[in-house]
């Protein structure tokens, strides 16, 4: 097996899906000859040709809208939006069409499309290139929202997303694109959607997170371990539909829950998880549910970015507070 970075795993999954299924095609800005600004589609145009790997004009709304039409007409488009910050104009297509076409036509027309976009900060980029507003997309019934946190999960979850009969938005933690490598077998095995992944077992508290924050949370868990605190770390992986059962089972065991996300706090998806715990886990909780998130500010320019994104130290500190409560 070969060790691959997360972005290489994305490339591998795209390649695999296009080889397996002729109806899969890739479209977006600079995805062709350039191979994507992060090289996620590198080499695909050489292997599969310009008909199936299509450079588009800089028109995000039409990239999404064309994908809806392609999907309804029997293809499986995988559209790339260059950065999540530029995906706001695709919300209209996702909210009003992609997520509704199946229900609107009672199953006659469907929308098996994937919309990929890198999200999150940590690469010292220009404004609008470091956003984490996945919660906007988790509010859309009929849609799946998937965020991988490692090369292997990126490969398996992207394959699953492409094979899924419904629309999926797939947000890739760009900070992890090249941060670490692991062995990724090109075995064509998809990972299950709609399921959390328990990254680390622990009995003292449950830390629920996703995407790039899995990395920082695991670092914090290591620190806590040295202090005698065993954190169970859950990677949500599919935010919508949520596998709340896994989270609930863990919290019933530990009695404590910390939710970590890179997005700002108010209206963030952590609020949904906390609300469900309030509904279903009240009698199991030994301490209030706590959230570690970015501050409720706009994403700052890179000079202050490290003070905005939650750090392992901030995560560990919040865990200690929970442990001190009870």
């Amino acid at each position: 097996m070969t060790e691959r970075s997360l972005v290489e795993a994305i490339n591998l999954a795209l390649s695999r899906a296009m080889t397996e299924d002729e109806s899969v095609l890739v479209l977006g800005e600079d995805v062709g000859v350039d191979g994507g600004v992060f090289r996620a589609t590198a080499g695909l145009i050489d292997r599969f040709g310009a008909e199936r790997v299509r450079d588009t004009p800089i028109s995000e709304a039409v990239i999404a809208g064309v994908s809806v039409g392609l999907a309804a007409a029997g293809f499986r488009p995988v559209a790339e939006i260059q950065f999540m910050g530029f995906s706001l104009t695709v919300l209209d297509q996702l909210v009003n069409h992609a997520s509704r076409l199946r229900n609107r036509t009672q199953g006659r027309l469907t929308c098996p499309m994937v919309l990929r976009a890198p999200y999150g900060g940590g690469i010292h980029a220009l404004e609008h290139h470091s956003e984490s507003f996945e919660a906007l997309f988790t509010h859309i019934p009929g849609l799946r929202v998937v965020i991988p946190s490692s090369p292997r999960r990126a490969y398996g979850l992207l394959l699953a997303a492409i094979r899924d009969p419904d629309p999926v938005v797939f947000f890739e933690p760009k900070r992890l694109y090249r941060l670490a490598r692991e062995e990724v077998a090109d075995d064509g095995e998809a990972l299950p959607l709609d399921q959390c992944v328990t990254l680390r077992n622990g009995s003292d508290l449950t830390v629920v997170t996703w995407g790039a924050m899995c990395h920082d949370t695991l670092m914090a868990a290591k620190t806590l371990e040295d202090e005698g605190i065993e954190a169970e770390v859950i990677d949500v992986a599919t935010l919508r539909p949520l596998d709340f059962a896994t989270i609930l089972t863990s919290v019933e065991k530990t009695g404590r829950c910390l939710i970590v996300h890179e997005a700002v706090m108010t209206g963030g998806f952590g609020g949904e998880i906390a609300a469900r715990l309030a509904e279903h886990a009240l009698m199991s909780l030994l301490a209030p549910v706590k959230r570690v998130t970015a501050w409720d500010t706009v994403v700052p320019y890179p000079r202050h970015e490290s003070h905005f994104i939650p750090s392992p130290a901030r995560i560990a500190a919040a865990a200690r507070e929970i442990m001190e409560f009870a």
Partner: protein
Amino acid sequence: MVPPTDSKANDAEQSIGNVQLDVHLRIRRIGYIDATGKVHGALPEFADTQELIRLYRAMVLTRVFDEKAIALQRTGRLGTYASSLGQEATPVGVAAAMRSDDVLLPSFREHGAQLWRGVSTEELLLFWGGDERGNDFKGPREDFPVSVPVASHAPHAVGVALAMRLRGEDRAAVCVFGDGATSKGDFYEAINLAGVWRLPVVFVATNNQWAISVPRSAQTAAETLAQKAIAAGVEGVLVDGNDVVSVRAAVETALAKARAGDGPTLIEAETYRLGDHTTADDASRYRDDAEVSAHWKSEPLSRLRQYLTDQGAWDHDDEEALLADCAAQMEVATEAYLAAGPWSPEAIFTHLYATLPADYRDQLAALKREMIND
């Protein structure tokens, strides 16, 4: 500014100075049968008497459907309804130009096109009656349902056309929207991309002069809507949208071009919305009766009836028989619509995803409990 130091730089300097560029701007306007029923030029090949009667019958059915739908809405038996009164020639002409395996992506005033293509009157009533089953067309299975958000379906047509091209099919997509839609980014992005990829798609802008209360003059400073295609490198055509022959001819030409691999066309069909925007609207708040009355003189049905009458192909008895036939058809459809079986509210969940995710089990169970308690 540094002066040029060699002759090559000097040439470049001259070519980027103030020069006159001739941009080609020409819009073809198509019109065969005018408001008085007089023919201009030779009619297209398809327009024999039998076919003209078929087109006329379709327009009359569309108008009778409209009257019935409004009556049902006024008596609380249908939801908010968008009338196509006065602009029947455009959807009927569009649909008549299409092949059955082409794909129609309509806006919300294309009942005439949907009926022609085999969507049933009952399905249309179900849709306007607030029932998704009305979009599960038994006839044109690949046609899109009505797109409510203005212009948002124009990109879908590009995707459908791309799918056809990738499969090497001899088919095309036809997308219909209103004048207001041409002010939206979706429209520009769609025609731009369709132009770049030379896709088999025809865009029809039904210019009925009003976007709810906003007149065409306040929609854009452009002289025509058709010319908006030119900046995208796409041909723009203007057509008398109240002449069903002109509309069909223009769309047939555009479809032939699309099938030949010569790319998309934008057709502006000039018509007039004689009715309110919808049954929830009162157009007298913003538009003069005199303007509406004037436009009644150029509505699409009377001109074709006049022409057919002049040809000796239509008379009063034919008209009476047709109206009775359409009324009877609507009675049957209305009965079927009103008798459409009850539908379990659980259906809200049925087609949300291919398989209902586990996360929905509690909500579905809660709805079922509510239904038992009702």
